């Protein structure tokens, strides 16, 4: 057993961390370009807002915030990281952009980044490694113990469709409208250990399960578990991994606010979990959210009925209002509520641009402008 997995690091409860995988584009035609290694080598940055790292292919770059107690801190870090990236990308004739998939890139053109881990992934997963040029947001929430992380991994499970719908920004793949709101997760599902965490009692149960996977030669490290929600022992967090990278950093911060408020609420109320029941409907509900977004019909294994996702999400935000106010992140949840009221997700926004321009190059150009735009910083500044 890897010692890093056996020991669950201490972390301050409810602290947040956000990772965003971002697209690197050519300003000529807004197709993906290669350049992550050189970009990273040329960046003049002291790490005061978090880290900037390589991802699997040269057309991706990952930013991660510092651990923060408040969502405002996450927003400030993301704005700072965006500023650094936009500036340094321009110095290298690259444009940076959000969104869960690049609408029209040709995946065989992608190039695996140098590095032992990426080489190993490429060798192990073959063409899936290049097709994994999709862009997600991961949200970490600090846990006091491994037991708490495992409980939260399962308690958060039923809310996965809401996170998917609120972040959905990947309607196009290979130049085609997939009719999905989030097509990114279809690329993730190809990996053998993707999906839901099995029913586990506690941290000891997780260790037992992971040891089993290791001894069968299925998993070597925690990174092999592509679960929708997983514990992250080296950080001392539970990690929500189903979100597309939104088109703006403000939406990314708002999703972090949802995660923090939800975890606060769950830990406060400690509801009784029906992990078995949830696991039976989890894949269906996830498909519904990916395919239909706000218009999905979510199966309730307890009430044996279907509920519109939009209703569920709005009820959840009302339920979390008190927790969010305690945490000082209610204004961020209002941003999500506004999206639910108008019914316009990032995926819808991209489709609207396609209807206006009639070509995907202009759609990506508009998305890149939106990501880099400082117009909405006032929203973040207000709550800072």
């Amino acid at each position, binding site marked *: 057993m890897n010692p890093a997995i056996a020991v669950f690091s201490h972390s301050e409860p409810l602290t947040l961390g956000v990772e965003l995988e971002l697209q690197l584009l050519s300003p000529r035609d807004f197709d993906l370009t*290669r350049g992550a290694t050189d970009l990273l080598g040329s960046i003049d940055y002291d790490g005061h807002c978090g880290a900037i790292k390589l991802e699997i292919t040269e057309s991706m770059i990952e930013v991660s915030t510092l651990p923060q107690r408040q969502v405002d801190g996450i927003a400030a870090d993301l704005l700072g990281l965006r500023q650094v990236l936009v500036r340094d990308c321009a110095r290298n*004739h690259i444009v940076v952009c959000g969104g869960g998939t690049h609408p029209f890139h040709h995946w065989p053109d992608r190039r695996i980044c140098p590095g032992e881990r990426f080489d190993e992934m490429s060798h192990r997963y073959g063409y899936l490694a290049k097709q994994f040029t999709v862009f997600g947001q991961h949200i970490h929430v600090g846990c006091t113990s491994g037991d708490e992380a495992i409980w939260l991994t399962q308690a958060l499970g039923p809310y996965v469709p809401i996170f998917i719908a609120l972040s959905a920004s990947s309607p196009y793949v290979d130049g085609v409208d997939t009719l999905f709101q989030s097509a990114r997760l279809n690329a993730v599902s190809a990996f053998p250990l993707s999906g839901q965490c099995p029913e586990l009692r506690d941290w000891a149960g997780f260790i037992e399960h992971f040891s089993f996977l290791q001894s069968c030669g299925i998993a070597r490290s925690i990174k092999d578990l592509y679960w929708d929600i997983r514990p992250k022992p080296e950080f001392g967090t539970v990690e929500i991994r189903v979100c597309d990278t939104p088109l703006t950093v403000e939406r990314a911060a708002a999703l972090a606010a949802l995660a923090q408020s939800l975890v606060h609420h769950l830990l406060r109320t400690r509801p009784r979990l029906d992990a078995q029941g949830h696991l039976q409907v989890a894949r269906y509900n996830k498909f519904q959210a990916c395919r239909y977004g706000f218009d999905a019909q979510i199966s309730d294994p307890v009430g044996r009925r279907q509920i519109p996702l939009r209703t569920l999400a709005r009820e959840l935000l009302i339920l979390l209002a008190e927790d969010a106010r305690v945490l000082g992140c209610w204004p961020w949840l209002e941003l999500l509520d506004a999206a639910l009221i108008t019914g316009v997700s990032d995926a819808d926004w991209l489709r609207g641009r396609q209807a206006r321009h009639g070509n995907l190059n202009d759609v990506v150009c508009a998305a890149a402008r939106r990501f880099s735009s400082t117009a909405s910083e006032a929203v973040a500044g207000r709550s800072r």
Partner: protein
Amino acid sequence: MFSHLTMPVRVAWEDLQERLFFLPPFPDELDPLALFSMLLVVGLLVGEWLRATLGWPKVIGYVLAGTLFGPSVLGWISIEALAQIRPIADAALGILMLEIGRRLDLRWLRDNHELLRATLGEITLSFATIFLFAWAVVGLIPAWAAAAAAVTMASAPAVVLLTVEESGAQGQVTERIILHTALSAAASFVVFAVVVGVVHAEYSEHWANAVVHPLWVVVGGLIIAWLMARIALLVAALLPKRSLAQVFILAATALLAVGTARMLAVPVFLTLFLMGVILSCTDRQKTLSYTHLPEGHWLLAIILFVVVGASLPWPDFTWLIGLQAIGLLGVRALAKIAALAWAGGGLTGAKRVLVGIGIQPLSATAVFMAYEIAGLYPEIGRSSLSLPLFAAAIMELVGPALCRLALVRAGETVDTEKSTGGVA
């Protein structure tokens, strides 16, 4: 040579003509289309063979085919045939120059001042060292030394573009090679126009030539380029972006610009380059930004480099000129590498050197430019410009390989995918 081979056929044909009145006279020259297709096949075969057996860029094969079958060696392509096929070579060079102009994004220089420093350094140092070498070492008079510098200071846009396309290169070294190639080409065109004036001032009996001819070249090129770019944008705006119709509009206006420039004796390479730059700078709605040239431009490129290979003045070769050309290329290489190593704009030292190596090619533009200047006063121009022409001849063969080497070592080509990362 061909006339000996065809003599029996000619005799038989003329015998038949007495009985079969519909027969045309025995054709003395190849039909231009037949010549086009023959050059295409020969260039293609040699290029593909070199690529498959030695891994060399195809461009080298095209040039070798032209040299081998041209007037200098086997003589299968005559000087008259070269003149016949010249419009196609002009169109090919023009389309490639249009493309390099379209790729010139001046906003990059605004965002990265170090790149501006690097490019100014590279242009100044290249011109100065070549001029000094040609004047002080070779002993050319200042006017011809300046002409030699104008012709050879820039990289070869056509070679760079084709090598990048052929190797599927993408990355920072590739982008910078394209940028510096485009900028040095722009600078060399300005110097070229000035040198035209200087040469007239030296030899013309009427001073007006020294003033009006450079203006004719620059202003004429600008007007044609602006007009064609406007027409292209106006018509393309009526069509769906990235549609085949837009590709046709782009290609058609480019060919119209080539034809107009030829009619008005304005250099085609300059006009089309300017048209590309104007398209890049004025296309705010991105009407044509996403429209790529058809793959067919490779066919034209083959003809271009076969013609360039056949145009090289190998019969005039002497060991002294050969040595002088190597010396010129040596100082030119040092100037380019030193300037780019000095200011890298964010790249590591090793990759800056690779950019310097990648911009070494010297080719079609230089040859065509040399013939433009030499054509002003043919009796003296040809001999005075044999130095840059031989330098270009050497680099026709070495340049594509150097450019490819830089891209491969940078780890930015498709072939180098297995070797992770190239030079860090």
